[in-house]
């Protein structure tokens, strides 16, 4: 059911998620963008409050400014609107591993309380119940970007107690695990869902709820998280989407839809 904020503009939980994610980005960011929800959130930021944000897609497109959301990571729209396009080895070696990215924005099929991500298999690796696409660029995005944002539907099949496979390392087993493994970047610092925002506890690195979207009850978050989820001592209410944010997001989706004149 769409929530009904005081302003009277109805919006869906998914729109709340996109808007909340976009707000976390700024014009100072150089963002390595995953396809799908991350790409929608990053372009929403670019088209609203963060016009200076640099969006980089792993197909080699630097400073892409897509008018429509790409279906694939290498749609012509990205190359045609980019400042320049580099080869894929160069992208991963110089731009990502070289440490030039402030935020990596990822989606997750499965994640755990420490922000580790599985996009490889459900079940055992040798005899998987479901074979997922795999890591692609994510393992090194999770390692080399100064920090990582994750966007995911808040569902117990996604937010699980234990991962079947760690494709992209978050905070490992928690604490300073990342440092012990030689990682020098902050790792996941934010999870955005259709219910809430979560941030890692400074000491344990366990993700805890720090902001709840309007109209969402704590019990819902507890029910839809596969581990005993904790709440920060001070939990904020996420400001509901502004009319302008919704308008830009809806325009973006409308012109990206199959069959639209612009797509």
């Amino acid at each position, binding site marked *: 059911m769409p929530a009904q904020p005081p302003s009277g503009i109805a919006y869906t939980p998914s729109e709340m998620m996109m808007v909340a994610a976009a707000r976390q980005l700024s014009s100072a960011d150089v963002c390595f963008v995953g396809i799908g929800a991350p790409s929608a959130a990053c372009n929403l930021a670019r088209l609203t409050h963060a016009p200076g944000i640099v969006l980089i897609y792993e197909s080699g497109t630097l400073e892409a400014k897509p008018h429509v959301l790409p279906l694939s990571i290498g749609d012509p729209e990205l190359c045609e609107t980019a400042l320049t396009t580099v080869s*894929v080895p160069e992208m991963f070696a110089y731009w990502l591993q070289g440490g030039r990215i402030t935020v990596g924005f990822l989606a997750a099929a499965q994640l755990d309380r420490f922000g580790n991500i599985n996009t490889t298999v459900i079940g055992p690796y040798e005899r998987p119940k479901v074979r997922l696409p795999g890591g692609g660029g994510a393992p090194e995005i999770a390692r080399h970007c100064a920090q990582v944002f994750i966007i995911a539907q808040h569902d117990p099949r996604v937010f699980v107690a234990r991962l079947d496979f760690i494709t992209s390392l978050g905070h490992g087993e928690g604490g300073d695990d990342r440092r012990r493994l030689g990682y020098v970047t902050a790792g996941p610092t934010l999870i955005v869902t259709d219910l809430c925002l979560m941030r890692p506890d400074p000491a344990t690195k366990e993700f805890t709820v720090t902001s709840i979207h309007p109209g969402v009850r704590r019990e819902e978050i507890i029910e839809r998280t596969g581990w005993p989820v904790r709440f920060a001592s001070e939990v904020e209410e996420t400001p509901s989407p502004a009319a302008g944010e919704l308008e830009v997001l809806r325009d973006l989706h409308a012109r990206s839809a199959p069959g639209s004149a612009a797509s």
Partner: protein
Amino acid sequence: MTDRPVSRRARFLSLTDAIADYVHDGASVAMEGFTHLIPYAAGHEVIRQRRRGLTLLRMTPDLIYDQLIGMGCARRLVFSWGGNPGVGSLHRFRDAVEHGWPHPLEIEEHSHAGMAAAYAAGASGLPFAVLRGYLGTDLARANPKVRAIEDPFSGEPLAAIPAHRPDVTIIHAQRADRAGHVLIEGIVGVQKEAVLAAKRAIVTVEEVVDDLRPPGPNSVVLPAWTVDAVVEVPGGAKPSYAHGYYRRDNAFYTAWDGIARDRETFLAWMDEYVLRRQSAPAPGGRE
């Protein structure tokens, strides 16, 4: 290093002859093109010639490897992301891994950074690639070819993976001139590295022109003496795209989900749009 010719000489061949001459049963074959310029027509000719036991390398297997796997051409897949971009699963790939249909598929799984580095090492004549990656993830455990090594200067642990050295690399490009020099524009992916890493290389092109006229002095040009066969195949990358020629058929990528989900539907589609066609492009089946 002795298995790699110092210099090659591009020959203009038909697609049928190029595949027959250079792609043999049991060979390792890389068909590259990162979303853009995927050599579909050449892949379909491999299927028509019923090659078996291939080791297929590709960062993103995409629909073309879904088709090769489903038609029983592959014994082993070396890859880093096996989905239908923006759509979902590659159902033939999943069926092979999950149920061994049409026969079991060995997989060697990497990250994109690792695949790209392994091609670059192959192109550079190095035995292995080094990167900050894999370590701390289960990919390092799942792939026995990922090894930890130490930086001899600082002692930092790094990941090493063997260089990719495919028997043959196949790519699609926009243009070649009559000497066989090849121009690639747009999202250039990992094609240059994949060609230079391979023992043999086949390039299909949209058109052969009198004058290549690179648009700038730094354009990506593979000289004729780095490729073995040049084949003119207009539309040879459909349903992916060729920058400056035609756009990506996103509707077909979406439709593929329904075609490939069921074994019989898949086989019927392959029969109608690939097996029963001569070596002309069989794009999304919707020219």
